[in-house]
């Protein structure tokens, strides 16, 4: 079989280049957008994904990690009674007003009070052991590298949170927050920083199970007791999802992203189909001649669809390569970008769908390949 579609694509690549660029850039936009969204909104569940707790205990109806309310500290004993639970530790999440040594004005910070012991669960995946140990010192805090300028501090310097003095003992990375700055300290320090005396208990209790696979079942089992005041439980996975979903859909950000994705798809499809139609029109007389010789319209349409497929595949390849470069660049600049397999697959499907839609549009113009028009 003579590979008409591919040979034409290679020989007349200039004619197909605009279509490939359109597909490629549409793909690149979708890819980076998804990576940014996952990176930015993924950071809202960093508290969960960066820790090794299997079950989270918090106030009922909590919509995201950042919107928790205190629960009774005695809930801890109820959780510990369950034989599946290996370890429980409190986690204090609090808002704070940061005043640094440099002229930064007030900065809104999210204070995370965690257990600084070596086997602590909170941020066990995000915080190096030596930094965690240093948090045990009174008034010690760790801040993220990306927020140093914003906070106007450097290591060893002091600042105040809610009027209490703190000292920066370490700088971490990958703890970037959305809408504020994460500041890590010990549970004791966090209690010092809290100026509301009614807020006495922890915001969350996090538990490690003997068998992490049972997280969902244990979370259900631990619910329902009201003897220690209101609380509920989630498996870490579920709570992370709730948190990300809250930011994606309840804040309107997700709708904006979806809207933008739709626009990119539409613009990409319009440009791609127009250039494909032009490329097909350029060979219309030849296609009409083949039809005169008895080659069916269906077979000719398959040629166009195959060309659209290759345009999509090559555009995707270009978008992929450029996307990897740009994402590495973003990472090196502490821009949160994350790409997982489902998101990458979604991107591929979107781009190939765009190519297919354009191919179908170009196929319609094939109706003009009427061989009778050659006899004029």
């Amino acid at each position, binding site marked *: 079989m003579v590979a008409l579609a591919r040979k034409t694509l290679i020989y007349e690549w200039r004619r197909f280049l605009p279509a490939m660029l359109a597909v490629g850039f549409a793909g690149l936009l979708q890819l980076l957008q998804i990576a940014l969204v996952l990176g930015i909104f993924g950071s809202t569940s960093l508290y969960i994904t960066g820790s090794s707790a299997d079950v989270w205990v918090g106030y009922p109806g909590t919509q995201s990690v950042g919107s928790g309310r205190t629960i009774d500290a005695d809930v801890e004993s109820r959780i510990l009674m369950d034989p599946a639970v290996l370890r429980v530790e409190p986690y204090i999440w609090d808002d704070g007003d940061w005043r640094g040594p440099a002229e930064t004005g007030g900065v809104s910070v999210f204070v995370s009070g965690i257990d600084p012991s070596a086997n602590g669960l909170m941020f066990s995946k995000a915080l190096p052991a030596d930094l965690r140990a240093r948090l045990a010192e009174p008034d010690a805090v760790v801040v993220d590298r990306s927020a140093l300028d914003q906070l106007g501090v450097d290591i060893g310097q002091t600042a105040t949170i809610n009027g209490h003095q703190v000292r920066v003992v370490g700088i971490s990375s990958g703890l970037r927050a959305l809408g504020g700055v994460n500041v890590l300290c010990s549970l004791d320090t966090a209690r010092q920083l809290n100026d509301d005396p009614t807020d006495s208990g922890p915001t969350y209790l996090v538990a490690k199970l003997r068998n992490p696979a049972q997280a969902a079942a244990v979370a259900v089992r631990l619910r329902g007791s009201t003897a220690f005041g209101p609380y509920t439980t989630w498996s870490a996975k579920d709570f992370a999802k709730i948190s990300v979903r809250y930011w994606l859909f309840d804040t309107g950000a997700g709708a904006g992203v979806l809207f933008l994705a739709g626009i990119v798809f539409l613009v990409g499809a319009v440009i791609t189909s127009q250039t494909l139609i032009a490329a097909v029109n350029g060979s219309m007389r030849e296609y009409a001649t083949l039809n005169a*010789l008895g080659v069916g319209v269906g077979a000719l349409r398959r040629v166009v669809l195959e060309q659209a497929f290759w345009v999509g595949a090559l555009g995707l390849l270009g978008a992929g390569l450029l996307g990897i470069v740009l994402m590495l660049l973003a990472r090196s600049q502490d821009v949160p970008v994350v790409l997982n397999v489902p998101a990458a697959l979604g991107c591929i499907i979107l781009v190939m769908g765009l190519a297919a839609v354009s191919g179908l549009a170009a196929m319609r113009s094939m109706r003009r390949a009427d061989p009778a028009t050659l006899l004029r």
Partner: protein
Amino acid sequence: MHPAATTEHAGTPALLAEGISKAFISGQQRTQVLDNLSLSLDAGELTLISGPSGCGKSTLLAILSGLQKVDSGHVRALGSELGQLDMRALERFRLQHTGFVFQGFNLFPALSAFEQVELPLNHMGLSRNEARRRAQQSLEEVGLAHRMRLRPSELSGGEKQRVAIARALAKEPELLFADEPTSALDAANGQMIIDILHRIARTHGTTVLCVSHDPRLVVHADRVLAMEDGRILSDRRPPAPTAPDQGIPS
């Protein structure tokens, strides 16, 4: 290639048109292109339709080859009633039985001469080897054996038209239609194309129907139909059939 006698059933014409009419309507204007025209063509002959532009000769070619439908009358090609075939069946009929040569050569810029010829054969259900054998043979027959790896941009006008003829010929059609095949070519190349078409009619027994106002073609045709205003004015057979293919044009 099959011998000259394949389609020469006793007295049955290869192509028969009876009382065909065709009109085009643009806005309020109705133009009668073919007016109750009847025609019968025999296998193994090169028939030339000549006439001034707009006389309906291209429309007649389109109708006889199954590319266009008639308003009234009917066309019988190789025993099939073309008017009764739907689009798919017409495509199948053209695939099995017809070849076309157009004024513009209509070759794919990306394909070599060999691939241009092989491409339609792929769709005929031939084996890969058979398709290649036929492509090779047809290109040899039009004298392009040494040029068959070249793309259209590397071929002269005459060579391109010979590739187009080879593309039609490789299908081994019983009916070969040519629309102004020489009008884009110079004298020498035009002559060569005429010779090839004539030889195809003779050696393959193909019914060759050629539409042209090129006077050089007349002496080579077995039969010349002169058309005007949608009718056939004269139907004659030139007295001196040019025996060898190296005939001198008038």
